[in-house]
């Protein structure tokens, strides 16, 4: 689908810009990172909506579709269920977004920036997890509640720069992005991990 491909491309561009900003002179610029994360979030939301719509078409049902399966197909480095469930539930309850073929035309994303922000709601997340995820849980789901690292092969899609990804998982919450600032002294192993909640991009500031 053109829309989801475009959204994926924009996500990839955003991530590579975030990577590049780590090495720029003068340090990471908070304003720029914030804007990049906003665009990434919009692209992600649109991508999810597009995938969801596609899934619905294929399945021919109105049931909410767990996102993890589609996520691992084409999503960026990490795939969490919790964050997605929150977002998808929002997509469900709000009016159907009107997706247009090209991004340059009018696009209305279902989740406006304000609604995706704020602290995550742990109770809701874990509830969704248990109800919907059993069928489509990722194979390493027991690890989701531990801080174990994941292998490269399972998380690195082809359109992203090939960096070793370190994923850290917290109970019931989304993964955090670690941007270069905090880890710049340990440049050998510090890398950005993409989070579905793009606010995490600036958590390290």
């Amino acid at each position, binding site marked *: 689908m053109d829309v989801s491909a475009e959204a994926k491309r924009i996500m990839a561009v955003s991530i590579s810009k975030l990577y590049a900003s780590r090495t720029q002179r003068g340090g990471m*610029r908070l304003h720029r990172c*914030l804007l990049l994360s*906003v665009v990434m979030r*919009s692209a992600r939301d649109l991508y999810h909506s597009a995938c969801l719509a596609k899934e619905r078409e294929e399945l021919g049902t109105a049931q909410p579709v767990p996102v993890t399966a589609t996520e691992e197909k084409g999503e960026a480095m990490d795939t969490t269920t919790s964050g997605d469930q929150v977002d998808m539930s929002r997509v469900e309850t709000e009016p159907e977004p009107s997706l247009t073929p090209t991004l340059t035309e009018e696009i209305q994303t279902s989740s406006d920036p304000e609604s995706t922000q704020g602290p995550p709601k742990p109770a809701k997340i874990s509830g969704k997890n248990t109800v919907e995820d059993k069928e489509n849980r990722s194979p390493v789901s027991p690890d989701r509640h531990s801080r174990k690292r994941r292998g490269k092969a399972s998380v690195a899609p082809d359109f992203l720069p090939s960096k070793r990804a370190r994923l850290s998982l917290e109970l019931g919450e989304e993964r955090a992005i670690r941007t270069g600032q905090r880890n*710049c002294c340990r440049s050998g192993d510090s890398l950005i991990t993409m989070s579905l909640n793009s606010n995490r991009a*600036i*958590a390290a500031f």
Partner: protein
Amino acid sequence: MAGAGGGSNDVQWCFSQVKGAIDDDVAEADIISTVEFNHSGELLATGDKGGRVVIFQQEIENKSQPQCRSEYNVYSTFQSHEPEFDYLKSLEIEEKINKIRWLPQKNAAQFLLSTNDKTIKLWKISERDKRPEGYNLKEEDGRYIDPNTVTALRVPVFRPMDLMVEASPRRVFANAHTYHINSISINSDHETYLSADDLRINLWHQEITDRSFNIVDIKPANMEELTEVITAAEFHPHQCNTFVYSSSKGTIRLCDMRESALCDKYSKLFEEPEDPSNRSFFSEIISSISDVKFSHNGRYMMTRDYLSVKIWDLNMENRPVETYQVHEYLRSKLCSLYENDCIFDKFECCWNGNDSVVMTGSYNNFFRMFDRGQRRDMTLEASRESSKPRQVLKPRKVCAGGKRKKDEISVDSLDFNKKILHTAWHPQDNIIAVATTNNLYIFQDKVN
């Protein structure tokens, strides 16, 4: 619309001077990062990425004639900031001059504030045109005279010398900003000034360097909840208790320092509801305000976002009173502009002396002027081709689509590497300074 010709109100802009290297190979250190006239317009300061400040002085050819050509020549050049290294964070601090602001003149010397990402400096620029001569114990070249050989005493006298302009740092205001400083603004009380970074605004006294007061702090307890940053701040030109700051979400907050020590609660919030038909991925980026400037009379303020300039009446918060489209033809190109980073460009804007015209830059070395009274706009170009002495600038036009007329430029031919981010307008006269990447163009209105 063209502004050339016609009635007496029309200004015809002519090339006056261009400063900077001619060759196309631009050294990064030479990229101009700020331009500012002083309060009389006699001095024009530029800052560059290499941390240098160059000050030009106006020399009027014939002061007795009311309409005369004036030229700006180099007055002083000094290295304001050097690259530094923050050892704690392992970060390099760029020496690029983000802003220069002139202090009102109190005596023979001139003072300006210049800032990079982390440190503000107060510079004194003074002239020396006399020197003492006739010391008893020292030769003219500085060698000491043996006191035993002195037979008579004389009083040293001041004799004229070639003019020397000295710049010396008088104050260094450091270590007050965790994030990158984007603005400085001098208060009308002539004693204090503010500095703003992405999340905080600090109030300083010009004489005191070891402390500042934090007056705005929008850093959330949890950085993951951050939704907007401060992009620019400015004091009101007459009310010393009032300042505004703009945000990356397109809002402007006006604060009154009399209300509380920490101005986290705004007095007024200026925000225009978003047009839902224009919503896109990049709506938030293009609504981010890159510059805010009060009008000289203090009744209005102007904001610049990526595609437009808006004039706000301070008494009306829900929408601007005027909106001018700078380059609306770029709206359909936002995706490409995002990829090549141009969408992050921070354009500045400025008022003319009597607040009747506003100016801002664009791409392809174009700059735009909007005449508020006559409801007319003009696009001009700063280029070497139009740089013959006193050559009248021809208005330019961009063809957004359809058939391109003669002399029009199509959107696809625009050079997005040639951007005019910084412009300044003489406080009284129709003299403008327009900075391209590494050149400073000075244009004046046509002298008949």
